[in-house]
């Protein structure tokens, strides 16, 4: 295992560091809160001559992803970062990036969407992009944001995958808080991500190709979409394989999901991102009080680990799914819908309740998490389960 350097810094700073270590050829970027310091720090690396990347300071996020598509199709390793309204503005291009099978890696600082305008953390932006065909990894901590960013490159560029990867970290909570992070040395990262060998590159001038052709009017559009589905299905094994290799290198475990105190859990919370820390803390307290509480954290949202989640929740009496995003008009938030779906084939389906929490950076206090576990204990002992998403802590 290579020696690692421990630093105290922000999530954004280590994502920028991971970008530098992954040695992209092109970084088109546009600033948006709270992603801004990622592209600022990378711009500093450019000014210092520490990277070879061509930095394209585009005039919008739409152009950022458009330039990513052009550069990736040309045969370059391409990385960018965005957030919130920026991701929303890219929406059209997100589909084109995945449809053209371009292994672009993008960090997203998870943030609420307007209206009303709000700059703080939630998952509305990324959950709005969940059907765009990107592989989606989520970080709880700055360490995971760093690790996920590095892992994203070999996942995206795997010949069996060739899909864009979004590496998500919670706005402000993870992007701006100072955290303890272990950094790999440049050589180890460089060897881990390897050299990019593009296929069908525009700059392969001796073998001209046309990208983005017209497949309508009875053309093979439908079949292209099926091959995209097959690719993201295949990506699951690749995410696991890359995760296992990185775990070996770094000594830090990686799974599609992370379970904590789940072996004998009777009540469990399923969550994504930084709130897993709050849940873990409360679950530990409750364990000391004799409550069999547990935590399941989802690290890979696309492809979604249905079987793994169902297995983790087997034997649990009551499950709470915490959603930091809405799916207005649906039965609950996006993670709730997936969890319910994962449990459909389970032998003993536990009660599953949904809490929408923390929208627009609304505080996720420990007593709120405790109240969720209290609800679960009540349900486990016979109280009827709540229906519809509960707005946790809304005034």
């Amino acid at each position: 295992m290579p020696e690692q350097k421990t630093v105290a810094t922000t999530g954004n700073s280590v994502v920028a560091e991971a970008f530098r270590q992954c040695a992209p050829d092109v970084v088109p970027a546009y600033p948006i809160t709270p992603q801004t310091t990622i592209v600022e720090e990378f711009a500093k690396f450019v000014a210092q001559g520490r990277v070879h990347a061509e930095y394209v300071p585009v005039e919008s996020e739409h152009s950022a992803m458009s330039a990513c598509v052009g550069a990736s199709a040309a045969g370059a390793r391409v990385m960018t970062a965005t957030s919130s309204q920026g991701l929303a503005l890219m929406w059209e291009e997100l589909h084109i990036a995945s449809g053209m099978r371009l292994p672009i890696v993008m960090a997203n600082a998870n943030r609420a969407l307007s209206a009303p305008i709000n700059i703080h953390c939630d998952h509305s932006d990324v959950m709005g992009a969940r059907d765009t065909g990107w592989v989606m990894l989520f970080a709880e901590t700055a360490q995971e944001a760093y690790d996920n960013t590095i892992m994203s490159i070999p996942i995206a560029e795997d010949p069996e995958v060739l899909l864009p990867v979004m590496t998500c970290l919670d706005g402000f909570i993870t992007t701006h808080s100072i955290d303890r992070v272990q950094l790999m040395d440049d050589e180890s990262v460089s060897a881990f991500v390897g050299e990019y060998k593009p296929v069908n590159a525009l700059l392969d001038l001796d073998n001209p190709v046309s990208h983005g052709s017209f497949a309508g009017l009875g053309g093979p559009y439908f079949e292209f979409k099926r091959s995209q589905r097959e690719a993201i299905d295949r990506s699951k094994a690749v995410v696991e394989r890359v995760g296992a290799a990185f775990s070996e290198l770094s000594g830090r475990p990686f799974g599609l999901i992370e379970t904590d105190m789940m072996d004998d859990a009777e009540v469990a919370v399923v969550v994504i991102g930084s709130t897993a820390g709050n849940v873990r803390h409360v679950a530990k307290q409750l364990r000391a009080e004799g409550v069999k509480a547990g935590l399941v954290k989802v690290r890979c949202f696309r492809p979604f680990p249905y079987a793994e989640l169902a297995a983790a929740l087997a034997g649990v009496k009551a499950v709470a799914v915490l959603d930091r995003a809405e799916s207005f008009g649906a039965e609950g938030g996006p993670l709730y819908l997936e969890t319910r779906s994962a449990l459909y084939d389970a032998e003993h389906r536990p009660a599953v309740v949904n809490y929408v929490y923390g929208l627009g950076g609304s505080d996720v206090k420990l007593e709120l998490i405790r109240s969720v576990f209290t609800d679960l204990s009540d349900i486990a002992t016979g109280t009827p389960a709540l229906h519809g998403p509960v707005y946790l802590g809304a005034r």
Partner: protein
Amino acid sequence: MATLRELSHREDRLEGGHRLCAGCGASIAVRQILLGAGTDPAIAGCATGCLEVSTTIYPYSSWKVPFIHNAFENSAATISGVEAAFKGLKRAGKIPADKKVKFVAFGGDGGTYDIGLQSLSGAMERGHDMVYVCYDNGAYMNTGIQRSSATPKGAWATTSEVGKAQQGKQQRRKDLTSIIAAHGVPYVAQGSISHWKDLTSKAEKAFAVDGPAFLNVLATCPRGWRSAYNKSVEHAKLGVQTAYWPLFEVEEGEWKLSSPSKALIKAGRKPIEEFLKPQGRFRHLLQPGNEELLSEVQADIDAYWEYLLKRCGEL
């Protein structure tokens, strides 16, 4: 500048057999411009539109150069990304430092004047070494002849209809060429498919400059213009002769009227009716009752001509 003999020996980089209409000006523009690009390798991008859908019907492609279509509004940003990849990969040592490649983006007027204006402006300002070509046929022809900000005043279009309350498009055209010239890029020009020599030499200049260049090209659309498909080049020529579409260039900030237009100073411009008459989209303008609107159209042409002569130091 390349001679006709030289041009005739260059490979056509847009192959025939595509599905554009007979008489389409877009493919003529592309072929002339790619001829002007010389013999260096080129990579082309194209905005969503007739040119794109008709030349890349999977699994076929008419493009003999590497080609990318991304979406409607971002042909400029997309090619800027391709050009950035070229620079980044050169710096990485994966492409020889002395390798030369030309980058060109095409878009119609809808994809350039309207929805793609921001993407174009950004790419021009950032200084990418690329040529952006707008083939201006004056409406959203691919979606069914809807008005754009390039549609001439008074023209019929399916979203600027002719009826009792309104006689076609109410507004003037946007002067995009001046807008791009105001970006201070090294080379900006207006050309027409009717003047191949002028257009190929402008393309040659555009590709030769180090930095962004912009070409705005008048390209007939017989479907949208409601004109005879076998007279497309002639109709574009009338655009030049009436000064609906003056030919000029802006080289390093220096405005210069091109010779076919400069000749009109002495020879005189044809009245705008000559451009309008063969086109069904203007039929109502030439009918009794619309004399005032017609004179407004002519007055706008006169005013722009005067503006241009001033800018070119001819007045």
